[in-house]
């Protein structure tokens, strides 16, 4: 099967040459159909829709149109439904299914898969679970995209969407919105963002582009810019059985969100039980991914310094540096920049900003990561507080504002492991060659996991990485996942 994936035409602001050339290429190709992932028009006006319809009548292949945020401006989604087609739907073939849905919040740039759409998606995924190829499409990007500036408008609930797409074995997600072509492999899910087919609104002086996606036993994505073609081929990972005899290299205990305080937001019993268990686990390294104290006050820091008796690497969360914390953190815990041995190297980042929940890594630290990646350690780890990927059961607000660029660099540099500690929910996902693990809050009353307060144990073996979560209260352990090492 072959699909042409186009996006963000933004009629009437089109570059006619780009439009005509793309249409010609599609018409002369053997693609089975075309999918347009939204922002067909720019302002949602009738005139714009009419112009778009006229232009697309030139395309001689069936087209699925997915609504975008610009299509919904000025109550444009009503026009979209009347003139273009339904806002969501199913296209079914012998061995494939495509589910497309509306992610637009009228008059907002941000996106959302609404509660009812989410249930619809789940129901359809269940219905079509036996289809060999499952494709889902919506306008907004699912994970942060590089070179697109502040990362403030991924889907509000992308963490949950990612979760069900992976759990139901969806192969491919097609989106647009950011006007910058990008592909990530997240576990077995291929996340493809198209650039803009013909709009003047490109980023970094980029050219217009679209994708040709070919699916057989592999998935081939070709990005065709007006002046170059890039192709990447993906195969599903096969490895599912891991031999226990693999050589063990080291063990990391990853904790976050201890929220030490005199009030009852800090659950002392959880903390003490968890640390009893941590001593028992005898880790080689303990990493605290931030929010050590509830607020950056002297009394909290003084209290916290009594609670930690084991050697721990700390990175600050926003809680740690508010009020006086900015001065107290380095005094009490010290911000180590890196720790490098032959076996493993850690790079610690401060992603927290004074009196703000919004995280940022920034260019300076990003350059230091590039330097760090050149060290000769066998296994490279980057540690920070904020999230790089949306986390299930939370809103996307825990993401770094420069998550797009940071994620891109970390995966490009093939950092083996990234440890984060925001959002109070555990998560472990491999994106490209990088495993990203998030820790739940260890001892804060406010947490989001059904499993309860917890921390993570990450065991690195010669052939695989074994990640489990441990309940703070009972010490009960369950596996978050096993990943083959490259």
């Amino acid at each position: 099967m072959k699909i042409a994936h186009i996006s963000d035409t933004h009629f009437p602001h089109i570059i006619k040459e780009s439009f005509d050339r793309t249409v010609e290429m599609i018409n002369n190709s053997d693609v089975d159909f075309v999918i347009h992932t939204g922002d067909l028009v720019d302002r949602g006006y009738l005139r714009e829709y009419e112009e778009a319809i006229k232009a697309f009548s030139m395309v001689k292949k069936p087209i699925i149109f997915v609504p975008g945020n610009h299509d919904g401006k000025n109550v444009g989604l009503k026009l979209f439904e009347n003139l273009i087609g339904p806002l969501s739907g199913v296209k079914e073939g012998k061995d494939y299914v495509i589910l497309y849905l509306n992610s637009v919040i009228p008059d907002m740039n941000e996106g959302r898969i609404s509660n009812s759409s989410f249930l619809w998606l789940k129901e359809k995924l269940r219905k079509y679970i036996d289809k060999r190829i499952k494709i889902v499409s919506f306008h907004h990007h699912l994970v942060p995209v590089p070179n697109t500036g502040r990362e403030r408008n991924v889907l509000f609930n992308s963490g949950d969407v990612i979760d069900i797409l992976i759990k139901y074995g969806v192969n491919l997600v097609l989106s647009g919105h950011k006007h910058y072509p990008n592909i990530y492999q997240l576990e077995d899910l291929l996340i493809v963002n198209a650039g803009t087919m013909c709009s003047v609104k490109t980023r970094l002086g980029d050219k217009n582009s679209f994708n040709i996606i070919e699916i057989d036993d592999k998935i081939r994505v070709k990005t065709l810019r007006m002046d170059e073609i890039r192709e990447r081929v993906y195969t599903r990972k096969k490895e599912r059985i891991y031999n226990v005899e693999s050589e063990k290299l080291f063990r990391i205990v990853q904790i976050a969100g201890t929220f030490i305080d005199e009030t009852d937001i800090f659950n002392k019993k959880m903390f003490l039980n968890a640390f009893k268990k941590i001593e028992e686990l005898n880790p080689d390294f303990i990493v605290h991914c931030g929010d050590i104290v509830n607020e950056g006050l002297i009394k909290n820091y003084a209290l916290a310094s009594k609670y930690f008796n084991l050697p721990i690497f700390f990175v600050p969360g926003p809680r740690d540096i508010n009020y006086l914390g900015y001065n107290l953190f380095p005094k009490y815990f010290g911000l180590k920049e890196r720790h490098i041995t032959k076996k493993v190297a850690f790079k610690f980042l401060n992603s927290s900003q004074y009196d703000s929940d919004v995280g940022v890594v920034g260019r300076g630290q990003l350059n230091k990561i590039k330097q760090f990646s050149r060290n000769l350690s066998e296994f490279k780890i980057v540690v920070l507080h904020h999230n790089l990927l949306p986390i299930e059961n939370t809103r996307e607000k825990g993401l770094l504002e420069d998550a797009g660029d940071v994620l891109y660099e970390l995966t490009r540099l093939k950092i083996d492991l990234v440890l984060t500690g925001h959002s109070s929910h555990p998560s472990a996902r491999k994106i490209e060659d990088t495993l990203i693990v998030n820790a739940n809050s260890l001892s804060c009353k406010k947490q989001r996991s059904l499993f309860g307060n917890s921390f993570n144990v990450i065991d690195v073996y010669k052939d695989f990485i074994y990640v489990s979560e441990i309940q703070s209260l009972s010490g009960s352990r369950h596996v978050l996942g096993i990943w083959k090492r490259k």
Partner: protein
Amino acid sequence: MKLFLNVEKARIPIKQFMTRGIMGIDKNETIKNACKKMIEFGISSLAVLENEKIVGFLTKKDIIDGIAKGFSVDEKIKKIMSKNLVFCDSSVPIEEVLNIMANFQVRHILIKEKGEFIGIFSLKDIIDLQKFNLETQISSD
């Protein structure tokens, strides 16, 4: 206590609940070593391998039964492993999986997809969730 497995959830395919990936051990390893590995990985079952292919299954219960029958911990696990593999496809709803497990009286089930073993589901995973519900109720004073 809020029941975790409500009617809606019961129809969800087991894929949603299973652990991806299976830990395996060679059939010629000793019972003692299998015990060590179960502790190391925090699990109570292992797939038994011959040339990296699954040929049997070993649970904590198999070990206890084996020791009770008089097997020494230095004997090979192939002597006490279950040779009948209990498995189902990843698309089977959890309520059916629980039925299958009850029928075979097992606490672990291997999950297959497109003919290959891809994961494992253990009753413990559900019990842990229930336990947390119970614990929070007890500790919410």
